[in-house]
C-alpha cells in the first residue's frame, strides 16, 4: 500500500504509531539481539570449557578482537552508505608493511603517516567508484590485488621485522595489568567515530545515502563527498588495524591482514547492520566482532574437531544473523 494512493493512510506494514507493549518489546529485543547472542554463545561455550568465562580469558578475547573491531567499524561506514569495501584486509597488510618499514625512523609516531596513507588509499578508491561509476565491489576487489601487490613490492615480498618494538608497545599492552590497550584504542575509534556520526550531520548523511541515494542527492546532500569520506574512514581504520597487527606480531608482512576481510564483513552483518545500507550502527559492529572472534577461537578451544569447527562456525554465523538481522529495515534481500 503506498501512501500516494491512499492519502492520510499509514503504511500498515511499517511501525504503527502507538506501538503496543508486545511489539515494542520485540523491537527492543531485535535491537539487543546481538548482545543476547554473544551472551548465549559465551555461556554455551563455557559449559564445555569453564575457563572461557574467567576474567583473563575474556580480556584476552577482547584483546584479540581489537584489530578486527577496528577494521569492521571502518567497513561499517561504507556498508551504511550502501557500498562494500573488499580492500580492507589487503590495505591493513599494506599498512603493516609501511609501519614496519617506518618505525626505525619515526618510532611510535608512525601511526600518523600510516593511517593517513591508508585513508588516502581509501579516498582514491572512493573517488574512482564515484568518478568512473564502477561498483564499489569491483573497485575494491581491484584494490585488494593492487594493495597486496604494492605491499609485496615495498617489503621485497618478505616479512619486515620490527626491532624497536617498544615504539609500538602502547598498542599491545595491558593498562593496569588487565585492560588491553588495543581494546581501548578500538573502543576509542568507535567512540570518536560514533560521536562524529551522532553529533555532526555526517551520520545522517551516511544513513540518507544508504537508505535513498536519489533523495539524498536531490536534497542537496554532498553524496559523492560522503561516499568518498566513508571509503576514507574505512581506509584509515584499515591503516590503524595494520598498526595494531604489527604491535602484536612484532613485524609487518604483505599478507598479514588478508584473512581478516571476511570475518570483518561477517562481524558487521552479525551485528545487525543491513548489507544494503542505511540501517545499522557502529556499536552493533563491536558486538558482532566479539561474536566472530568468540566463534573463531572458542570453537577449537572447547575441543571441536577440526573438521566440524568450520561447520559449526558457518551454521552459528547463519543462526546469529538470522536472529540479529532486522528484517523490517531491509527492503530487498539479495
Amino acid at each position, binding site marked *: 500500500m503506498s501512501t500516494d494512493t491512499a492519502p492520510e493512510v499509514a503504511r500498515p506494514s511499517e511501525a504503527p504509531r502507538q506501538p503496543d507493549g508486545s511489539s515494542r518489546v520485540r523491537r527492543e529485543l531485535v535491537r539487543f539481539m546481538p548482545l543476547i547472542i554473544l551472551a*548465549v554463545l559465551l555461556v*554455551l*561455550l563455557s*559449559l*564445555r*570449557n569453564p*575457563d*572461557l568465562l*574467567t576474567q*583473563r*580469558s575474556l*580480556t*584476552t*578475547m577482547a*584483546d*584479540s578482537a581489537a*584489530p*578486527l573491531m577496528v577494521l569492521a567499524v571502518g567497513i561499517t561506514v561504507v556498508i551504511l552508505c550502501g557500498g562494500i569495501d573488499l580492500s580492507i584486509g589487503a590495505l591493513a597488510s599494506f599498512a603493516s608493511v609501511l609501519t614496519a618499514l617506518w618505525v626505525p625512523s619515526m618510532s611510535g609516531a608512525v601511526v600518523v603517516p600510516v593511517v593517513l596513507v591508508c585513508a588516502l588509499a581509501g579516498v582514491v578508491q572512493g573517488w574512482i567508484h564515484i568518478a568512473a561509476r564502477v561498483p564499489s565491489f569491483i573497485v575494491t576487489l581491484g584494490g585488494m590485488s593492487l594493495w597486496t601487490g604494492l605491499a*609485496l613490492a615495498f*617489503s621485497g*615480498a*618478505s*616479512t619486515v*621485522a620490527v*626491532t624497536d618494538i617498544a615504539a609500538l608497545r602502547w598498542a599491545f599492552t595491558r593498562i593496569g595489568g588487565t585492560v588491553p590497550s588495543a581494546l581501548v584504542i578500538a573502543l576509542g575509534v568507535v567512540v570518536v567515530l560514533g560521536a562524529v556520526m551522532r553529533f555532526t550531520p555526517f551520520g545522517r548523511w551516511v544513513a540518507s545515502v544508504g537508505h535513498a541515494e536519489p533523495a539524498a542527492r536531490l536534497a542537496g546532500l554532498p553524496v559523492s563527498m560522503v561516499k568518498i569520506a566513508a571509503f576514507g574512514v574505512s581506509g584509515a581504520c584499515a591503516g590503524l588495524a595494520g598498526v595494531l*597487527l604489527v604491535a*602484536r*606480531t*612484532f*613485524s*609487518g*608482512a*604483505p*599478507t*598479514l*591482514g588478508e*584473512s*581478516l576481510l571476511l570475518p570483518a564483513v561477517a562481524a558487521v552483518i552479525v551485528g545487525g547492520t543491513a548489507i544494503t545500507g542505511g540501517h545499522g550502527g557502529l556499536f552493533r559492529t563491536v558486538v558482532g566482532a566479539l561474536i566472530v*572472534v568468540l566463534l*573463531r*577461537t*572458542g570453537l*577449537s*578451544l*572447547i*575441543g*571441536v*574437531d*577440526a*573438521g*566440524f*569447527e*568450520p561447520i*559449526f562456525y558457518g*551454521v*552459528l554465523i547463519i*543462526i546469529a544473523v*538470522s*536472529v540479529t538481522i532486522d*528484517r523490517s529495515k531491509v527492503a530487498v534481500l539479495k
Partner: protein
Amino acid sequence: MRKPTRQRLAVLTGVLAGGLLLTACADDSGTSSASGDGGSCSPEDITLIGQVRNQTNPYEAAWLAGGDEFAESVGLEQQHLTYDGDSQRQQEQIRQALAGSGMECAVLNVLPNGDSDTAPIVAAADEAGAFLVTQWNKPADLNPWDGYDRWVSHITYDGEESGYLIAKALIEQMGGSGGIIALQGILDTSAAQDRFAGLQRALSEHPEVELLDEQTAGFDRAEALNVTRTLLTAHGEHVGGVWAANDDMALGAVQALEAAGITGVGVVGIDAVPEAIAAIEAGTMTATVSSDGPWQGAIGLAMGYCAATGELDVADVANDDRAFFAEQFLIDQTNAAEFAEPELNMDDFECGSLFDRATGPIG
C-alpha cells in the same frame, strides 16, 4: 512467516548446542592449577597442545597423528588446534588457549604460519609460562636462549640443504645436463627462499644445466598445475626437469606433464607426503625429502613434557640444541618403500634422546 522462523531457529539452536557438547571430545581436564616452577608439574597436570595450519594436507595431519601417539604413550591427550593458514587466527587461538587456568603446565608444539608469527607466539607463551617448542619458521634474530626459559627449542630443517639434495637428484636423473623449471613457494617465507638457494647452489655446480624459468605457485597444487602448463608451452621440449619447493607443487607439475603427454621429465619436491612417495615408487616423480612429520608432531610435545616434569632442565640444554636443524632424508626410488609406512619409534622420545636428530645449529 516470522513465528515459524523463530521456532525453527530455536530448535536449530538447541540441536546445535547439544551437538557442540557432544562432539567436543571428552576431556574434562580437572585443571588443578599446578604450582609451576620450571619443571615441577606432575604428569597428569600437563596439557598437551599441538597446533598446525590445518588438517587438510597429509603432512600436517601426520604431524598431529604423531603428537597423538606420543600423548597416548604418556597417558595424556593432545588438544588439536588448527588455524587454516590464518596468522591472526593462530595468534588469537594461542592467546585464548593460554588465557585458561593451569597454563604453567601447558606444552605447546607449534607450527607458526610464517616467520613473523613466531615472535608473538613466543611472547604469549612466555607470559603465560607455558612450555613451547616451535618448528620450521622463526626469524633469525629471535632465539630461545635470549632469556626464554620455557621456550625449549626451535626445530627446523636446512631448507637450503633440502633444495640442494633434490636438485642434485634431479640433475643426476637428467644425466647432468638440460633445462629445469622451478616452482617456488610463497615468496615471503624463508622456507621458499632457502630451498631456492639450495637449487641455485646445485646449479652453480652444474653449469651445463640451465634454469629456464622460475615462477611461484604458492605451495599450491592447483596453481602449480596451471603455472607448469603455461611454462611447458613456453619452453616445450627444452624442459628436462621440474624442481618444486614442495611435494604438492611437484604433484601438480606431474599432473600437468601427464596432461601434456610429456614423459621422461623428472620432478622433485620436498615433504615426502604419501602421494609423492607413491609417485616415486611409480616412477612419475624422482625424489623428495622427508622431514618426518609424525616425528615432528611428537618430538615437540616430548621436549615440552620432559621440561615440564623436570626430567629435562632447559637451562642445561646447549644453545646448539635449542635451535637446530633436524636430520632429513632424501627419498628416491631406492628407499621409497621404507618411507611409505612411517612408524614412530618411541625410544626417540625418551627424555635423554630428544636431541639425537640434531644435525647442527641453525645458521
